[in-house]
C-alpha cells in the first residue's frame, strides 16, 4: 500500500489534556498462549515470516536471557514479575483491505478518534485502499511522518513515498527484515548486543515490532520521523525494537511519543533502541514518554525497562537524546552514547517527572573512546507526591580519549516533602587529559515563588507549571517546537494537584 498522508503533529494525540487515554480496544486479536519458551519464539518468528538467521539470533538471545537475572541495582521496587504469565505475541487480525472507512472495524476507528487522529489519516492508518490521494488539509502541520505501532504490529506507515524519493527508509522493522535484510543483519544488535542486559536479551528474543530508519550517505531527512506506541492487549508485554542508521553526512530527527490505556495490572515494557551514526552524521532522538503511571495510590501502571544506546561510530558524528519522562509506574532507562569516532559528540537532555507513587531511575552513559570527543548531560528531575526520582549517570573516559570533555548538570526539584530525589554520578577517567565537570543542585518550589505568581493573578496550578517549566527550560528548548509545546502541557497534567 502506498500510504500518503498530510503530516500532522502526532504527539498532540499523545500528550494533550489530562490522562485521557484510559481506554482499551476490543478488536479481534490473535494472541499467543501465555509464557515464554523456544516454541513461542519460533511462533513469533514464523508469524513474521522471518529468515532463519533471525530465528537463530532470537534463540541465542533467549538462551542469554535465561542465563541472566533482573538487574537489582536501580532504586526501584516492584513485586516480582512472572515472565511466564505474559503473552508475547498479539496481532490485530488481518483482513483484506477495507474499501472505505465504513468497512473498518468501528472499535479501531473509535480508538483513533480518542487519539485525536484526523479523519483522513484514520483511513490511511486503517489501511483503506486508495486512502491518501484526496484533499490536502491545511490545518495539519507539514513535515512529520508517522509510523503508528498499534499493539505489536505496525498497522500502517505513512509518508513513505516522500521519504523514498530522498532515499530514506522508514518502515516497521519486520518489514525491513523482509525488504532490507542486509542492512538489518549488519546493524541489528551491533549497538545493543542480544545478551547486553536482562531486558535487552528479553527484547531480542521476542521483539515483535518497532521502527527501522535508514538515511543514506549525505542525505538530510526531509521531515521529522515519528512513532507513537500504544499498549493495547491485556497482559501483552511490549517489546519494540528500533534501529536507526545515519550514513556518512546524513542527518535525521526522530520523535517518539506514547500513551497507554488505563488498567489495574502492571504491564511490562522492554524496548530496545539502537542508533548508529557514521562520519559527520547527526541523529536527534526525542521522546515524550507518557505511559500510564498507575493511579494516585500507585495501583497499575507500566513497568518501563528500556535500553537505548547510540553509537557515534564516525568522526565528528553526533547523537542527541532528549527525553521528557512523565509516565510509567517504573522507569528504568539510560539512553547512552558510545563516542567512538574522533571528535564525536553525545548529548543527553532529560526531564523526568514523578508524582504519586511513581519510581524513576534514569540517566545516561557517555562512553568516551575517541580523541576530542565531547558530551553534555543536562538532567532535570522533578519529584512530587510520594515518588522517587533518581538520576544515575556514568561518564567514562577511556585511555584513548585524549582531550575529551564532559559537562554534566543535574538539577532536582522537590514538590512537597514526601518525595525523594537522588543523584548518583559515576565518573571514571583513564585519560589524564580528559576533563569532566559535574554540577548538581536540589531545590524546592518556594512558597514565596508561588505567592509571588499568585499575587499576579496566576492560579496555584498555573504558578507551579510556570515554575516547573522554567526549571526544565534548558531541556525543553532542545525538543522540536511542536513537541515542546505538548511536553509543557504534559508536565502540567502530570503535576496536577501536587501542591496545596
Amino acid at each position, binding site marked *: 500500500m502506498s500510504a500518503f498522508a498530510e503530516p500532522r503533529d502526532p504527539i498532540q494525540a499523545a500528550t494533550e489534556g489530562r490522562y485521557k487515554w484510559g481506554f482499551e480496544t476490543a478488536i479481534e486479536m490473535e494472541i499467543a498462549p501465555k509464557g515464554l519458551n523456544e516454541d513461542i519464539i519460533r511462533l513469533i518468528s514464523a508469524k513474521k515470516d522471518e529468515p532463519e538467521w533471525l530465528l537463530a539470533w532470537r534463540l541465542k538471545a533467549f538462551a542469554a536471557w535465561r542465563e541472566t537475572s533482573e538487574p537489582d541495582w536501580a532504586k526501584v521496587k516492584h513485586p516480582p514479575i512472572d515472565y511466564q504469565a505474559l503473552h508475547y505475541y498479539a496481532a490485530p487480525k488481518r483482513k483484506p483491505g477495507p474499501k472505505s472507512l465504513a468497512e473498518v472495524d468501528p472499535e479501531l476507528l473509535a480508538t483513533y478518534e480518542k487519539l485525536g487522529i484526523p479523519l483522513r489519516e484514520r483511513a490511511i492508518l486503517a489501511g483503506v485502499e486508495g486512502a491518501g490521494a484526496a484533499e490536502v488539509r491545511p490545518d495539519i502541520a507539514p513535515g512529520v511522518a508517522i509510523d503508528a505501532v498499534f499493539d505489536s504490529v505496525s498497522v500502517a506507515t505513512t509518508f513513505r513515498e516522500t521519504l523514498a524519493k530522498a532515499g530514506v527508509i522508514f518502515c516497521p522493522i519486520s518489514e525491513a527484515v523482509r525488504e532490507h535484510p542486509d542492512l538489518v543483519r549488519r546493524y541489528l544488535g551491533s549497538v545493543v548486543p542480544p545478551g547486553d542486559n536482562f531486558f535487552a536479551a528479553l527484547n531480542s528474543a521476542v521483539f515483535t515490532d518497532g521502527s527501522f530508519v535508514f538515511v543514506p550517505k549525505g542525505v538530510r531527512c526531509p521531515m521529522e520521523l515519528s512513532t507513537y506506541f500504544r499498549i493495547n492487549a491485556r497482559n501483552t508485554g511490549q517489546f519494540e525494537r528500533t534501529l536507526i542508521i545515519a550514513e556518512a553526512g546524513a542527518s535525521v530527527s526522530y520523535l517518539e511519543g506514547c500513551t497507554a490505556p488505563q488498567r489495574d495490572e502492571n504491564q511490562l515494557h522492554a524496548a530496545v533502541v539502537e542508533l548508529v551514526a557514521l562520519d559527520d552524521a547527526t541523529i536527534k532522538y526525542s521522546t515524550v514518554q507518557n505511559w500510564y503511571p498507575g493511579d494516585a495510590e500507585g495501583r497499575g501502571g507500566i513497568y518501563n525497562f528500556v535500553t537505548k544506546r547510540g553509537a557515534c561510530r564516525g568522526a565528528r558524528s553526533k547523537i542527541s537524546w532528549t527525553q521528557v519522562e512523565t509516565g510509567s509506574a517504573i522507569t528504568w532507562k539510560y539512553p547512552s552514547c558510545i563516542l567512538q569516532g574522533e571528535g564525536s559528540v553525545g548529548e543527553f537532555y532529560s526531564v523526568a517527572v514523578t508524582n504519586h507513587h511513581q519510581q524513576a531511575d534514569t540517566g545516561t552513559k557517555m562512553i568516551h573512546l575517541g580523541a576530542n570527543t565531547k558530551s553534555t548531560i543536562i538532567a532535570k528531575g522533578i519529584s512530587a507526591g510520594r515518588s522517587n526520582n533518581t538520576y544515575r549517570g556514568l561518564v567514562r573516559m577511556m585511555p584513548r580519549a585524549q582531550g575529551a570533555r564532559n559537562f554534566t548538570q543535574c538539577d532536582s526539584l522537590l514538590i512537597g516533602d514526601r518525595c525523594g530525589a537522588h543523584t548518583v554520578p559515576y565518573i571514571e577517567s583513564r585519560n589524564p587529559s580528559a576533563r569532566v565537570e559535574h554540577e548538581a543542585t536540589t531545590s524546592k518550589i518556594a512558597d514565596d515563588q508561588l505567592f509571588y505568581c*499568585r499575587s*499576579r493573578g496566576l492560579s496555584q496550578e498555573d504558578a507551579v507549571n510556570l*515554575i516547573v517549566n*522554567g*526549571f526544565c527550560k*534548558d531541556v525543553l528548548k532542545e525538543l522540536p517546537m511542536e513537541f515542546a509545546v505538548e511536553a509543557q502541557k504534559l508536565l502540567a497534567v502530570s503535576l496536577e494537584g501536587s501542591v496545596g
Partner: protein
Amino acid sequence: MLEIRGLAASIDGKPILKGIDLVVPTGEVHAIMGPNGSGKSTLSYILAGREGYDVTGGEVRLDGVDLLTLAPEERAVAGLFLAFQYPVELPGVGNANFLRTALNATRRARGESELDAVQFLKLARAALRDLAMADDMLKRNVNVGFSGGEKKRNEVLQMAILKPKFAILDETDSGLDIDALKIVAGGVNTLRGPGFSALVITHYQRLLDHIVPDRVHVLAGGRILRSGGPELARALEESGYAALGLEAVGEDVAAIGAS
C-alpha cells in the same frame, strides 16, 4: 475604596498587627511610614493574601468585597496589586511570558479577550518606554540577576501593565537612583485618577516629593499612631519618630525600637 477595620494578626502566636483602622477612598493615594519592624510589610502581605499569618480580628474590604476570604489570585484579578519589598526570583521563567500570563489571567477574569504574543509585546514595549527601561528586560528571567533597582522597576512595570485599581507599593523607592525614583513616581502618577488608589509604604520624604500623598499614616508597634496630611511626612523626615513620640508602644517596645 479600601477599608481596613480593626485588623489584628499574629505570626506563630506573636501579635504583629494590633488593630489597624485605615480607609483609603477611591482616587486617593495614602502613604504609610513607620520604624523598621513596625508591621508595614506584614500589613501589605496580609492584604495580598500571603499564607502564614493568623488574622485574629478585623476585616478588609475592597469596594465592598471581603478581601480576606479570597485567594491571592482572586484578589489580584479583583484589582489588587502588591509591589514587593523583596521581589522574588523565578529561574527559567521569562519576564515576558510571566507578564503575559499574569495579564491574561486578569483579562480573563474581567471578561476581556486574551492577548497573543504580538499584541502583548506591543503593549509591553510601550510600558517599558514610559518607564525608560530597556527592551531586554522582557527577555530576562523574572528578577534573576536583576540589580536591586532593576527589581523595583520591574515591579512597577508589572503594575503599569496590569493596571490595578488598588496598588500597594512596599518600599519601592529603596534602592532606586534619583532618576529611577522620578520614573517610578511617574509610573504611579500616570495611574492616578478617579478609578485608582494606592498605599505607598516608604521611609523617605523624597518619594513623597514626587508622589504627593493625600494622607500620611504612621504605623508603629502594629498600630496606626498618627495620621495627617503631607506635612506629617516632612515633620518625620526632620525630627524622626522618637522626637514626635511615635515610637512603638506596648509590650514589645524593646523588640522593635526606634533606631
